[in-house]
């Protein structure tokens, strides 16, 4: 339905000691043997298509508050999921700790039995886009430092240093967390692919709280980091990755210590900031904020399964219906707006070599110069678009989950004309500059939305005049993207994202990045969120 809580931790998985993460993964030859057993078993029971995913999923969390390490958790989950088409219907079964050919064959047989039980509820058989087999291939995320090989002590020292800096700079409380992910995925299908992939993700986050003891009011400021498809190298501080301005923002390297010092000071400053006067403002949105608006108002409505109604009972449908695409002239945004999908962008959360149904990943346009030009679609959907090749954006969050269409990285292309943030702000008469993501909500067809942020600065006659609070903006997707008047150039282009995009029943999460440069939207409705209880 949308992004889950930022501090939410998955409950699936099994903890192990750090050393066990250095165990070599299961041998590819063994995986192939297990996969072949499932492929053969499914075929013998009448499946016309089968794919097998053998997964080992590792997570590590280091969780702290103030001067204490609250928990160090290592989780590991291993199992096998088998998906089949039998009698024209999908079936899926997953078995924990499946390490023998007998186990994987059993999962395949169960999947066929489910497909056959449900086939009577099908109106027409599944149509799967053809896909060539790739043989035995592999892909590995281009990380420089494997986070799972970094000693616990180094991580603890970093977070306790961050917390100490927050407290010394006026925070009353600080929580910080390192969240590391490694997906070791093996995919095999009756198309003749045997794909071994090693994916890494990383997310350092904190939240600082400041309290005014007299009034009892409190304010928070969360980190301006992004979750990334990188290793521990994301925490390597490099001046070239810093974007200076009213506050420092970060690109491919994150200075957690520097950010927390600013956060503590800013949370304190928020306590006495001016409460916003509701009305129309021109908004200047930093990439650390805009990623979430892109996610909700572009990424989701252009998922073809929503458009078709497959998510009607949970995540919702979409205003961006097929007739709008077919018209060839649906005005999604202003001519400044080009939005593209990309599963190959280095360092992004969505980057993989092949998706979870064996399709090579790629980049494609969704909105070109303001006009809707495509959706996100997978093998059993693309025929609806008159295409015969999947877009390569199928994903399952675990061996135990069935793969389905998930959002690739969806990003706003940078402006073609050179433009800095400073130059953009200089032209704004009455505006608000928003940095960082905050509260977010959008309707089930993706028209009406409301977003908050971490930091709000008032702009008057081209100058930033001070901090605001109690800010949220409301708009309608098409109206909002048509109010886009300027996009800064590629020098300002940065990625934001989330580990927890939720969709499907049973619900699955997916990690996705969204890139943009700072962007200006004119005349957006801003509300004041202050209340008394």
């Amino acid at each position: 339905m949308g992004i889950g809580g930022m501090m939410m931790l998955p409950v699936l998985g099994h903890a192990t000691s750090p050393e066990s993460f250095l165990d070599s993964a299961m041998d590819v030859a063994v995986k192939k043997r297990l996969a072949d057993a499932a492929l053969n078993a499914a075929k013998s029971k009448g499946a016309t298509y089968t794919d097998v995913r053998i997964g080992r999923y590792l997570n590590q969390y280091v969780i702290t508050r103030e001067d204490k390490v609250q928990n160090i958790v290592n989780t590991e989950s291993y199992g096998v999921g088998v998906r089949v088409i039998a009698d024209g219907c999908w079936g899926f079964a997953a078995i924990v700790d499946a390490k023998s050919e007998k186990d994987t064959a059993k999962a395949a047989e169960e999947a066929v039995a489910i497909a056959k039980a449900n086939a009577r509820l099908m109106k027409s058989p599944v149509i799967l886009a053809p896909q060539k087999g790739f043989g035995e291939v592999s892909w590995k995320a281009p990380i420089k430092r494997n986070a799972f090989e970094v000693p616990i002590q180094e991580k603890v020292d970093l977070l306790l240093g961050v917390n100490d800096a927050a407290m010394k700079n006026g925070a009353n409380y600080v929580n910080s967390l390192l969240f590391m992910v490694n997906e070791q995925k093996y995919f095999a299908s009756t198309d003749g692919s045997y794909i071994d992939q090693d994916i890494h993700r990383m997310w350092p986050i904190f939240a600082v709280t400041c309290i005014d003891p007299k009034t009892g009011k409190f304010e928070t400021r969360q980190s301006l980091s992004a979750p990334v498809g990188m290793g521990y190298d994301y925490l390597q501080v490099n001046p070239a990755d810093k974007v200076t301005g009213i506050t420092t923002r970060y690109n491919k390297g994150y200075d957690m210590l520097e950010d927390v010092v600013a956060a503590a000071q800013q949370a304190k400053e928020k306590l006495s900031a001016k409460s916003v006067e509701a009305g129309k403002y021109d908004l200047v949105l930093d990439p650390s904020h805009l990623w979430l608006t892109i996610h909700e108002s572009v990424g989701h409505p252009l998922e073809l399964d929503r458009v078709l109604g497959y998510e009607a009972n949970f995540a919702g449908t979409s205003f961006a219906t097929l007739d709008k695409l077919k018209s060839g002239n649906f005005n999604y945004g202003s001519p400044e707006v080009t939005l593209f999908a990309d599963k190959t962008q280095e360092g992004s959360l969505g980057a993989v070599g092949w998706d979870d149904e064996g399709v090579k990943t790629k980049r494609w346009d969704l909105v070109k110069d303001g006009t809707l030009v495509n959706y996100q679609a997978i093998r059993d959907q693309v025929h609806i678009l008159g295409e015969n090749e999947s877009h390569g954006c199928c994903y399952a969050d675990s061996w135990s989950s069935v793969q389905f269409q998930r959002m690739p990285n969806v990003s706003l292309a940078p402006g073609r004309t050179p433009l800095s943030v400073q130059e953009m702000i200089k032209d704004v008469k009455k505006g608000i500059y928003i940095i960082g993501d905050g509260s977010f909500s959008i309707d089930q067809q993706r028209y009406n939305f409301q977003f908050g942020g971490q930091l709000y600065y008032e702009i008057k006659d081209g100058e930033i005049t001070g901090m605001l609070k109690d800010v949220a903006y409301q708009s309608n997707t098409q109206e909002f993207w048509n109010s886009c008047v300027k996009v800064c150039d590629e020098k300002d282009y940065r990625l934001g994202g989330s580990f927890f995009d939720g969709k499907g029943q049973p619900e699955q999460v997916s990690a996705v990045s969204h890139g943009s440069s700072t962007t200006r939207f004119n005349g957006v409705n801003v509300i004041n969120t202050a209340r008394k209880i």
Partner: protein
Amino acid sequence: MSVILTEAEAKALLEKVIKLSQADECVVNLQGEIRGNIRYARNEVSTSGNLTNKNLVVQSAFGKKVGVATIDEFDDTSLEKVVRRSEELARLAPENPEHMSVLEPQQYGKSNGYFESTARVTPEVRAEAVAKSLELAGQDNLTSAGFLENRAGFSALMNSKGLFAYYPSTGVNFSLTVRTDDGTGSGYVIRGYNDFSKLDTVSASRIAVQKARGSVGAKALEPGKYTVILEPTAASVLLENLYYDLDARSADEGRSSFSKPGGKTRLGEKIVDERVTIYSDPSHPELPASPWSGEGLPQSRVSWIEKGVVKNLAYSRYWAQQKGVKPVPFPGNMIMEGGSASLDEMIKSTKKGILVTKLWYIRQVDPQTLLLTGLTRDGTFYIEDGQIKHPVKNFRFNESPIIMLNNVEALGKPERVVSTESNQSYMVPPMKIREFTFSSLSDAV
């Protein structure tokens, strides 16, 4: 070994693991479950599946140095390996001054959450239940999308001081969205039970069909403050945000809606209308829950808000020790009391108001006031002189459950509902609320 162990099997396995421990203290959790689901959309089945899962979690402690390791293999070598791993991690971890020693053996009450009728459900039974729904909800000019999932499982706990706990449970959830083919009407229903035999997909589907047809031709009303009748499904997603905030430590620290200036809290204070009473009780017959918390504390009946007054906040064992009070674990269920009026009777007694079937995409805007935002969805209707007059376009709201529960006009008869945000089940009454704040209109159907 099977996935769902009996109490005796679980106890024997846990004793075997505890015997392997060389740490000062050891706690072992064991869980197993079988899940099956069927999902449908566009009037036909889409994806469906079966899943088995089982895992063992071992926490070892040397003084206040703690390590956790788990495994999903159960041969002797694997059991030895997981215990040694947790001990190794404990030695690597820094001391956590907040770590508490493991509990002495406890006494637990009874709670019956396991039903054979649910444990026996097969893919064919699920397909049949959905076929019946499709017969109704897939008829003339309607498109349906739904989900049915059943689960059977157990959890067990043992520690090195001899504490043992075991709880088996089952559950089934069914939800359905019916839309008119022209996209102008949408209706929704959700049902959740521990006992599969209580699930009637036909009568549930009838409600979603009626709401879908009834919501065609919605008229726009100006945003503003309205009297609303929140159906229990709609109310639950607002209430649960209040429940999440019932943490004593956050309140004491001055960073929750239960905080007051100067380090004080609202404990003992009347914060909402005196007709509001909220409690938890694991032995509730319609909403059974585990009689023990994750670390083995007994879950008993706890009054959280009584006649509008905050009676209890949740205290972790550490925070309870700091404050010199008894620990109160976060509850496994929540029951809000109400009156005896049915939803129809509440509509009849309403001069002007809006009936809300479901609320969607609820997010916190301000933690200090618990201000939430979200939208109405799948059946929003204007009521005048005790009758539903016409459907209305969906609204975005900005409202706090604390403000909302101060504006209670009437409470109806509580029923079991499933939160469409968290999937948790609650007992919630339909409620009539005055001055509920709708801040803008949405074109979504």
